[in-house]
């Protein structure tokens, strides 16, 4: 790297090992993919992770609206339903026994359950990946968490400190296994035709974007494509909007990033008279584009210099600068490529979800140390395989026992429980139950054993 960006504040404490983390996903929304990236990253770090799959409940939740009942009645029903979901989270935590409950923004975890976790001594953290000014409800729930990670600094940090909330700055990131370049030799020509253009934008139709992009009307619709939802009633930019403003999956986002020559990255703003808001936090797209090795033109953000060096991103501060940037970088492919490579290198070195989760866990470990709380909690240290084998009934035919021993390794690998974590027999059973399709004889045997234990009161 030719220039250096100031490093993030060093994380306190040693690197915690072999943790059990329960990640609470939101019902829907922008934090949902971030939550999944966190799950993946935590597993890559060798921790045992479960996700509370709140999206599974979303259909039932929205079905309440089909009752067409009175407004107050609906609000009561929704509140009751969310209460049940919170209890479901607690029930999963009771079984899974996490060292840490990690909520994403809008996680369905209510006050009562957070207080129960606190009483139970289970550490809770939230990664609040929202703009605190647009989502002001943080003031109601931040004090209920042991740790509150945010993507902004002051004045939010000062407010949280004044509230007695332990917080730390934790910017967004990318997941290299998901956000990665597509080598030209592997690129699908159909993807290039379907998703590619000289200039593209992926995102929702916030007011500032709608007005800003009107200044690109001179571009040919073949050369400028707008992807994403919430572009309704947009009469002026219609010819650029793809697929009638349908939502774009995360997978397709990566395809678009890779297939586009220039990716526009204009941070959202709710005020139409501020085309370029000059705000603080850096959106996920900045890191995802960089990780994909895709070239981007990104608007200035006050926290951007702390994350990327000046020669790693093409930054614009005004609309004329954006237009000039498009013209320049379309004409200078070598500059584009070099800059995109530098940005990708930076992301891989410092801005992965793995790095973020490591930082988050170090902060958590430091807090646990201050409280003299074991982190991870003390558990049976016998290797998993030994415990698994020990959990088998003693009168099991030796042939079966031997067969199990050989297939156990393969099973743990298939269930993604072999990355240095410390799974219990119950973890294996929980994963097995969640598998779809037909089970193998070994898997069936283990489930059968579990039922047998429950019926006859034996414990692993």
């Amino acid at each position, binding site marked *: 790297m030719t220039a250096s960006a100031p490093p993030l504040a060093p994380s306190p404490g040693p690197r915690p090992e072999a943790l059990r983390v329960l990640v609470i996903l939101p019902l829907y929304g922008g934090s949902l993919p971030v939550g999944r990236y966190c799950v993946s990253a935590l597993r890559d770090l060798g921790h045992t992770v479960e996700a509370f799959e709140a999206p599974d409940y979303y259909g039932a939740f929205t079905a309440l609206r089909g009752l067409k009942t009175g407004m107050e009645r609906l609000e009561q029903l929704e509140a009751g339903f969310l209460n049940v979901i919170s209890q479901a989270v607690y029930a999963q935590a009771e079984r899974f026994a996490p060292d840490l409950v990690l909520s994403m923004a809008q*996680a369905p975890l209510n006050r009562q359950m957070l207080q129960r976790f606190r009483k139970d001594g289970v550490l809770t953290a939230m990664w609040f990946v929202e703009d605190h000014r*647009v989502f002001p409800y943080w003031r109601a729930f931040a004090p209920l968490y042991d740790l509150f990670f945010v993507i902004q600094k002051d004045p939010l940090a000062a407010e949280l400190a004044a509230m007695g909330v332990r917080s730390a700055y934790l910017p967004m990131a990318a997941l290299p296994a998901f956000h990665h370049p597509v080598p030209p030799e592997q690129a699908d020509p159909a993807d290039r035709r379907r998703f590619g253009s000289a200039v593209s934008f992926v995102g929702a139709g916030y007011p500032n974007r709608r007005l800003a992009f009107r200044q690109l009307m001179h571009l040919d619709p073949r050369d400028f494509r707008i992807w994403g939802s919430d572009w309704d009633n947009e009469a002026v930019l219609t010819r650029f909007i793809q697929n009638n403003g349908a939502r774009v999956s995360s997978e397709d986002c990566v395809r678009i990033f890779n297939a586009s020559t220039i990716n526009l990255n204009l941070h959202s703003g709710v005020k139409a008279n501020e085309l370029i808001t000059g705000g603080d936090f850096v959106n996920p797209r900045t890191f995802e584009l960089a990780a994909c090795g895709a070239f981007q033109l990104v608007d200035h953000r006050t926290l951007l210099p702390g994350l990327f060096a000046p020669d790693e991103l093409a930054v614009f501060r005004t609309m004329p600068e954006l237009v000039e940037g498009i013209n320049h970088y379309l004409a200078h492919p070598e500059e584009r490529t070099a800059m995109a490579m530098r940005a990708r290198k930076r992301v891989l070195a410092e801005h992965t979800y793995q790095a973020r989760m490591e930082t988050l866990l170090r902060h958590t470990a430091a807090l646990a140390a201050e409280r003299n709380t074991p982190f991870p909690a003390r558990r049976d240290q016998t290797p998993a395989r030994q415990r698994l084998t020990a959990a088998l009934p003693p009168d099991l035919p030796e042939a079966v026992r031997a067969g199990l021993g050989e297939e156990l390794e393969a099973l743990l690998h298939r269930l993604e429980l072999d990355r240095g974590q410390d799974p219990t027999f119950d973890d294996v059973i929980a994963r097995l139950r969640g598998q779809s399709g037909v089970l193998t004889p070994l898997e069936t045997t283990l489930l059968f054993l579990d039922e047998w234990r429950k019926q006859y009161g034996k414990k692993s």
Partner: protein
Amino acid sequence: MYLIVQLARLGDLFQTARLVASLQRRGETHLCVDAVLVEVARLAFPGVTVHGLDLAPDRVAGCVRTFGELASQPFRAVYNLNHAGLNRAVARLFPPDRVFGYRAVDGQAERDGWLRLAMRWTTARRHSPLNLVDLWGHLDPDPVAPQAVNPPATPRPGSLGVVLAGRHARRSLPPQALAPAVQILFERQCALGGNPEIRLLGSRSERAAGRELMGLLSPAALARTVNLAGRTSLPEAFACVSELGCMLTPDTGLMHMATRLGVPVQAVFLSSAWAWETGPYGTGHTVWQAAPPCAPCLESAPCGAGVRCARYFGRDWLRALASGSPHGAPLPGDSLPGASLPGDTLAGTATEAPLFLQSAVDPLGLIWHGGENDPRRAALRRVLAENRGVPPAGDRGVHEETRETVAQQRLHGAAADLYDEAQWMLPRFATPLPPPDLNLPGERA
């Protein structure tokens, strides 16, 4: 082009002023009201196109034409202000994503997150943080400044208007209590010159109360008194109120009319009337607020305190009214016209007196100088200001703490009071719902 659907009463119409002004700033603004209010709405809001809906049961079918008119207009946003079945029906004329306030989505009624906050704070009305004018005004993400809503009210020559009663008897003072106050304020108007009258205002059912009041006035005052109760149309009342130098009133629609015209108001608030909710909007107004521990009550519930709040308006109040301050000096001879006053005991005057509140504004909206120190209200206002992206300010006069000094625990408590847990968890409450105001410079919606 914008539409406001306001199907409630006269007072609610005038309390829509901040929202109207905010939308007028952006573009052509329409107002849909009860047909009986059309004329006075046009007087109150010049430049606004007013549509009337005849809400009488036997004439509702005639609304079809009005619905057709409304449906044919390319409204960029529709602000539906009332939690009522009629409003829900009207809202169905428009796509739900253009309706703010109360709307129906696929037949399911719902309300904006901002209005959910209001429902939360009304569970503890004593600490109500926001006037109704501001509640509706802040449905616009960038409303006009509070001081730009109504003209400032300053003492001026002109007749004294006396509103005889409000909608509920408990919220009004009887003629015996009113008469000495009328006398005091009339003499003050006389001192300003212009040979003022005393104009009694109200509906036909209040004419008798007007006659009773007149029987309690001094001959000089009586000679200048006109009983207009039940004798004016709403437009005529609007013209009459515009000429007043001062209005003495309970919490009524005519009070809000007066504030719209910049007429200084001396308002008597008791029972369920609560200045912080529906007080006169603008600078230069005074509210005498009875605030016993049971206030504000529910007007639909029987009073278990013997209407204690009415006793607040005795001699101590009159002294304060005469001096224009909470600590009134004795009146000459301390003999006052009229019969015995509420609050008079065999021993003398009532020991309780109403709060002396004077209106002012801060960046969020209307505030009251004077009155009780209420840290909880200040914290709620601070959280609401944050919610609306408004620079914080202390609720000066009620609670002097600034943003930096409002205890953080109180802020957290206020936030917990305001935000129900669904609002934490549902992304639909994560961002405000601004109308898609995308005018290029120089272009109006």
